[in-house]
């Protein structure tokens, strides 16, 4: 009877399309919003992920997230280096400065000052120029999205000059970097050079990047650093989640996205349930006739589940396809960099669709199961 169930579903084209589109709309909305939400949260901590050569982050013990770290005295670097289990530790600066372009425009930029000698915290991949060029005077490297933000529509050209804190900065490379939360250009320079580019503060070093000795447990080394220095020491993973949780707990982002995701679920569930229920009601007389002719309740339930499952699979496929098209079409948009269809969104929305379809099928099944087959003789 599976074949009959499918023919009944396809036979009512209007409702079939309405059902599939209802699910597809819900899937599109939910998958997109979950993906963008995850992408934005990831962007809040993207600079932590980008540092791949240091496992430990040491900072002031009141830091809540990466963007609000105050400067540490240079003596703290020596104290961290003296903690047993620390293989090495280097300076690291992260902050915001204002760049003045040659046409007079201003742009806020995220500036990283990486250790002059070891280059720990350097960009993951260079697209143009060499990392070693950073040793040249006033040298900076910018991320690709940042270049397009500062010089929109212009071809990539090294050697460009602009000003940071009234000091000449020379572009020596373009790199690949994860987009930051605020869509600002990301600049890399040497730590010693950053001292010129950043308006004077007593302490410039915002973080100490360190590595545990081979074989040492990173978490254990962190606890030792904290005990001996009074600073906060976190593994890269711990710092990543600390930053994420700050944005989840202290901003309206989750509520905003949560409402949209919930709306997607509610609208999708309402449209689908209502349409499927109407579809079932309109077919009730035929289900009654089939029951009268001896079709068991179990097989009727199977027919309805099959119809609901097909609607769910089709709607999910179309919704995910639309979403993939959206992210593919916007993959070149600079300010949307870092937003993509997250596997978690795919899986979680699949679960949500299963819930919608189950709910829908249950309502319809209940209506059919309580149907007396004798109703077929009542017109």
């Amino acid at each position, binding site marked *: *009877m599976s074949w009959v169930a499918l023919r009944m579903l396809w036979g*009512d084209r209007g409702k079939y399309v309405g059902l599939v589109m209802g699910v597809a709309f819900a899937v599109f909305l939910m998958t997109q919003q979950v993906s963008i939400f995850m992408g934005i949260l990831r962007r809040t901590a993207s600079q932590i992920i980008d540092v791949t050569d240091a496992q430990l982050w040491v900072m002031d013990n009141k830091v809540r997230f990466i963007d609000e770290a105050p400067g540490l005295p240079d003596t703290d670097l020596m104290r961290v280096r003296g903690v047993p289990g620390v293989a090495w530790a280097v300076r690291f600066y992260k902050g915001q400065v204002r760049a003045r372009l040659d046409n007079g425009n201003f742009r806020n930029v995220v500036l990283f000052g990486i250790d002059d000698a070891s280059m720990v915290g350097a960009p993951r991949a260079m697209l143009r120029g060499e990392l070693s060029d950073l040793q040249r005077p006033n040298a900076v490297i910018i991320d690709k999205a940042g270049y397009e933000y500062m010089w929109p529509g212009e071809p990539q050209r090294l050697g460009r000059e602009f000003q940071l804190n009234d000091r000449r900065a020379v572009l020596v490379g373009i790199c690949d970097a994860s987009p930051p939360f605020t869509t600002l250009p990301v600049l890399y320079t040497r730590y010693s050079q950053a001292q010129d580019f950043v308006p004077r503060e007593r302490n410039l070093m915002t973080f100490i990047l360190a590595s545990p000795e081979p074989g040492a447990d990173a978490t254990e080394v962190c606890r030792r650093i904290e005990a001996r220095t009074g600073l906060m020491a976190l593994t890269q993973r711990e710092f990543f989640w600390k930053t994420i949780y700050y944005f989840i707990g202290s901003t309206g982002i989750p509520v905003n996205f949560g409402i949209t995701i919930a709306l997607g679920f509610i609208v999708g569930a309402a449209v689908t349930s209502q349409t499927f229920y109407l579809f079932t009601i309109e077919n009730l007389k*035929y289900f009654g*006739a089939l029951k009268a002719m*001896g079709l068991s309740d179990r*097989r009727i339930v199977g027919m309805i589940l099959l119809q609901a499952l097909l609607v769910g699979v089709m709607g999910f496929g179309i919704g995910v396809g639309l979403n993939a098209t959206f992210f593919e079409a916007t993959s070149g948009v600079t300010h949307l960099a870092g937003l993509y269809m997250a596997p978690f969104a795919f899986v979680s929305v699949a679960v949500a669709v299963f819930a919608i379809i189950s709910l829908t099928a249950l309502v319809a099944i209940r209506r059919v199961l309580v149907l007396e087959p004798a109703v077929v*003789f*009542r017109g």
Partner: protein
Amino acid sequence: MNDCKLENSATGATGRLDQAVICRDVVKEFGEGDSRTRALQGIDLDVHAGQMTLLVGPSGCGKTTLISIIAGLLQPTSGHVQVLGHELHEFKPRELADFRAANIGFLFQQYKLIPALTAVENAAIPLLIARQPRVKALRQAEELLDVVGLAARRHAYPAQLSGGQQQRVAIARALIHQPRLLVCDEPTAALDAESGYRVMEMLREVAIHAERAVIIVTHDSRVLALGDRTVSLSDGRIMHADLALEETAHET
């Protein structure tokens, strides 16, 4: 009038007419408390194979309730119903469904053809319910549509067929699994006189030739003469049963 006595005497006299349906003191009540109504008030009825029995009577007299009980779609409040040698109350719901699927054919007033299926697909449904392979079921349905004169329209959807043609598809669907009891609800109600007459002739033919019991609920006075027996109901009781056939049976 006690229909039971008439039927028993007829059967006993000839020994030819097998009892397909035996109803004894069948009562059916609906509702609870003050709103309780008694739709059937002690029905005794025997229906024989090879006969076309017409159930007639005004609206609300209990015809539909009675055929629903005979077809195993409703449980009587009290009394016994035996169909094709089986006490229906002894069946579990699943067994009753299987029994209906194997032994009873249905012809509904509004045909109840599934709009998304073609004529041949609709006709094949009872075989699909019986889990026959689809290809085989469709082939058999095509053959039966040929018998009812609809071979050329076998791929038409119900909406593309006239009322008479739809009823013939419904007849093919009711007969395709060779049921021993055919239950029909107002089969000519939506048809013109000529189509109604043709449908009744067809039903009469399938009843007599296959030793099949056919019960027809009808309001249509045009077709009364075409039945072998007419049982008249009023207020949940049998008021009159046409003796013509019983007398014929005695004579033979």
